[in-house]
């Protein structure tokens, strides 16, 4: 990493709900992520800057922020990809209460996971043999396609329906619910469907697809929500079951 011959113009949100953008000049590097930029500002210019990160390799889902108007996982977002003109505007995630600077209160996000029935409950007692699942079964494939969520809340932040209806469960919680209704080992699959078809549930989705567009691990929560819509509609038919 050589000496930088140019700098990035970076505007970072400081404060909570009431706040302002503060401009910083950050040395540009050949290979540099948005999280690197935020860390540089904290270490060299603004020791009190609040932000979250942990793994730095796209696994933990804690470093999501709004970068140039779009929610992104900052540890895996290269500056070169998003700031062609050398300018970065970094804000906290949308649709969540702001705590300070770039840190949001994730409580509503995780409360909605619970409200959507997102907590796994085994269907067999602890001592029972582990049930064998066929990985090729349609149910398991549906669950597998949706299961790699890292809880970063990028989709939740990108979703306009969440903005309009604060009681809407949001793409991540509904995507989680979809994995559970397709999990043969889950003991409360009917309860998950009850939870997601209540007010603010899967039927509130407008199928905008912002979640699909922004999901850093390339999941398709819109498809999961469509699956929940189909499954809840099927329950209305005679013999529709859970």
């Amino acid at each position, binding site marked *: 990493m050589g000496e930088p011959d140019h700098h990035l113009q970076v505007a970072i949100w400081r404060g909570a709900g009431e706040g302002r953008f503060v401009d910083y000049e950050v040395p540009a590097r050949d290979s540099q992520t948005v999280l690197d930029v935020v860390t540089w500002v904290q270490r060299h210019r603004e020791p009190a800057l609040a932000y979250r990160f942990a793994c730095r390799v796209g696994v933990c889902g804690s470093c999501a922020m709004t970068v140039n108007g779009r929610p992104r996982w900052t540890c895996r977002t290269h500056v070169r990809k998003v700031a062609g003109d050398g300018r970065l505007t970094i804000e906290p995630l949308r649709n969540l209460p702001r705590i300070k600077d770039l840190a949001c209160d994730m409580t509503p996000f995780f409360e909605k996971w619970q409200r959507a029935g997102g907590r796994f409950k085994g269907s067999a007692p602890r001592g029972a043999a582990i049930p064998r699942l066929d990985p090729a079964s349609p149910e398991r494939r549906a669950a597998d396609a949706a299961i790699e969520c890292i809880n970063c809340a990028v989709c939740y932040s990108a979703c306009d329906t969440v903005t309009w209806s604060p009681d809407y469960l949001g793409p991540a919680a509904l995507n989680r619910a979809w994995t559970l209704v397709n999990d043969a080992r889950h003991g409360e699959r009917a309860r998950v469907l009850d939870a997601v*078809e209540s007010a603010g549930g899967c039927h509130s989705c407008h199928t905008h697809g912002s979640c699909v567009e922004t999901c850093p691990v390339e999941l398709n929560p819109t498809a999961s929500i469509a699956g929940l819509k189909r499954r*809840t509609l099927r329950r209305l038919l005679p013999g529709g079951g859970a």
Partner: protein
Amino acid sequence: METRLFALQRLSAMLLAPLVLVHLALILYAVRGGLTAEEILGRTQGSVGWALFYGLFVLAAAVHAPIGVRNVLREWSAWRGTSLDGAMLLLAALLMATGLRAVWAVVT
């Protein structure tokens, strides 16, 4: 209840799509041909077909519209709960009553 409303809205939309197209074509035909009100009434009065067509139209619209308005209001205002549901039932009744009255007026 949300799933039932979701299903009802889509089913009524499936009915409304062809009904609206026929309705629009009918308007174009009546206007282009320069039919007078008297001529129109001459064709609709006593017609079981038109009574059924527009009766179904009114029924589907009275189901479809209040569900959509309810969704819009829930997204764009803080109005929720039984007062909203009650108001939407009233809207459905109003659409049904005025619509069926209009159908009654042209077929009898």
